[in-house]
């Protein structure tokens, strides 16, 4: 099992981004995804800067992947996308079918990101035949369905030729819109947003109205520009033995402003020190995770925001 760190979904100052990656390359992470995937207006790092950073990080011994913008709206977005795809010194993660087309057209291999809708082995095969080497499962897919997809892919004869990655820790990317919700919360128009998302290094919490009555109720969602994330932190880290069993190759940790390196280290030590015979409680005790509201429902086929203790038959 390998560990990846996903693209930074938030808008951080340039120096914070640089410091983040300097810290991350010191950790036992295997794959690092880089690039702006949420909003084209964010310019602390431009396409050229991401390309340069990718090149520099390639020397760290980590596998580097450049991630593309998720919602493509303008020709400027397409131009930036083409530049990224044609000049990338490393593998590219396509987060939109525009990127898939550009990469496939140039016979370049790619990763299908979590916003590419792959819900069955037949769709997976279409993209495999176009050069997809790895896919990141859409976040709402449950474990049994993933198992079914991977078994079917083996039957269809290509299951062992691709890698599977699962979003395993962090706030879930749930939706993308034309509208900027951070600007809306600040009473600003999108075109005059003042890049206000930079004020929220881990996004802006959204609560139900009961927040006022009962005080600190769990966050419902997290606003991050045009992206809406889960309010709670998705956490599947203790599922690594099951993921290993069904054929997952990489567990993805999504960056937050604090503690990402610690999460990587803890997962890594659980992976290297432990055997699959450990009980769930033992695994959990090894993963001393940052106290935060957590959920794991999608994996169990219940509402994503729910927190499940496990399935019958799990250790």
């Amino acid at each position, binding site marked *: 099992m390998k560990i990846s760190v996903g693209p930074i979904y938030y808008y951080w100052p340039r120096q914070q981004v640089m410091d983040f990656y300097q810290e991350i390359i010191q950790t036992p992470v295997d794959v690092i995804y880089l690039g702006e995937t949420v909003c084209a207006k964010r310019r602390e790092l431009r396409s050229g800067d991401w390309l340069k950073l990718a090149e520099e990080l390639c020397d760290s011994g980590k596998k580097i992947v450049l991630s593309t913008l998720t*919602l493509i*709206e*303008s*020709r400027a*977005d*397409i131009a930036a*996308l083409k530049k990224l795809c044609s000049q990338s010194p490393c593998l590219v993660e396509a987060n*939109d*079918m*525009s990127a*898939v*087309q*550009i990469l*496939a057209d140039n016979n370049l291999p790619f990763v299908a990101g979590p*916003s590419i*809708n*792959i*819900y*069955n*082995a*037949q*769709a997976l*095969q*279409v*993209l495999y035949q*176009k050069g997809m080497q790895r896919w990141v499962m*859409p976040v*709402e897919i449950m474990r*049994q*369905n993933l198992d*079914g997809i991977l078994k079917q892919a083996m039957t269809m004869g290509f299951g062992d030729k691709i890698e599977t990655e699962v979003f395993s820790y962090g706030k*879930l990317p*749930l*939706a*993308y*819109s*034309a*509208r900027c*919700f951070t600007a*809306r*919360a600040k009473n600003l*128009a999108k*075109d005059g947003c003042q890049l206000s998302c930079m004020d929220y290094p881990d996004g*802006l919490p*959204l*609560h*139900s*109205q*009961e*927040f*006022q009555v009962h005080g600190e109720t769990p966050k*419902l*969602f997290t*606003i991050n520009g045009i992206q*809406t994330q*889960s309010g709670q932190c998705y956490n599947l880290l203790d599922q690594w033995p099951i993921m290993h069993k069904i054929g997952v190759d990489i567990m993805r940790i999504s960056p937050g402003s604090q503690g990402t390196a610690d999460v990587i280290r803890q997962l890594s030590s659980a992976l290297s020190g432990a055997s699959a015979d450990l009980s769930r409680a033992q695994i959990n005790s090894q993963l001393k995770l940052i106290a935060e509201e957590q959920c794991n429902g*999608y994996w169990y086929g*219940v*509402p*994503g925001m729910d927190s499940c203790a496990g399935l019958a038959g799990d250790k």
Partner: protein
Amino acid sequence: MELVCPAGSLPALKAAIDKGADAVYIGFKDDTNARHFSGLNFNDRKAQKALDYARGQGVKIFVAINTYAQPSGWERWQRAVDLAADLSVDALIIADMGILNYAAQRYPQLPLHLSVQGSCTSAEGLTFYHREFGIRRAVLPRVLSLDQVKTVAKQSPVDLEVFGFGSLCIMAEGRCHLSSYVTDQSPNNSGVCSPAKDVRWTQTEDYLESRLNNILIDRYQAGETAGYPTLCKGRFAVEATVFHALEEPVSLNTLDLIPQLSAAGIKAIKLEGRQRSPAYVAQIVSVWRSALDSFAKAPESFSPKVEWIQKLANVSEGAQTTLGAYHRAWQ
């Protein structure tokens, strides 16, 4: 421009055709379509009746198979494609690459449209679907401004259909998991958004409250119009301010844009609402028919009539309409 109208039942389909639809889109009675609501949609017998009625009037029938096939139910999606092909419908509206591939291989003559749930917003993306599956048309997500729609239309390898009227999705269609995060069902995995099974209304001393799987979506004072608790249209607290943090309950209405959409080369206008009543469908189709006819007769002098706007406003969510993402300032 072709007027593509919704029907969730045979009476709604007849209403749409009688009021002037050029094409009607329907779904089968299961989770293969994105309006998988109880009491809605067509079994094979009803679909045949729908087709007979439409053929008699020279109207096209499109079948939406626009959810993503779950691995355990692949055969259900396959059967839906087979059934639509047997019926010789005029087009299939599909989102899933696996299903598109199956339909394209098995029935190469059957016209395929890329569903809005396919979430394709660029000529490059459309090129992929065109080359791989031979799609002839795509429905654009409601996230592009009018200028952006024009740009895509100029370069698109296939005909484009856009939404003209109806309930407004604030998120890029096919890329929204809000519903499955709070309930267990989403448009992609079950063909449902904010499912009715999880809706609960409670009258308290001060408010009428709407909940979705126990999460408070909105709270109404006496006299306020209460709307269906669609997740993105609730009132939530952000930094201690309570407001429609994502979107107000409004309907998209683009009557004003008919001349621009036509000039951009848009081939079809889609009306939303397979979950709505035959009366609703009759109302919106008749207004849009009049508007498109009036535009065709005298394009230069076209302007929406007050009575059309009034009629559409009467059936709109919250009795308000918006140009949505087409109007840049809304974004």
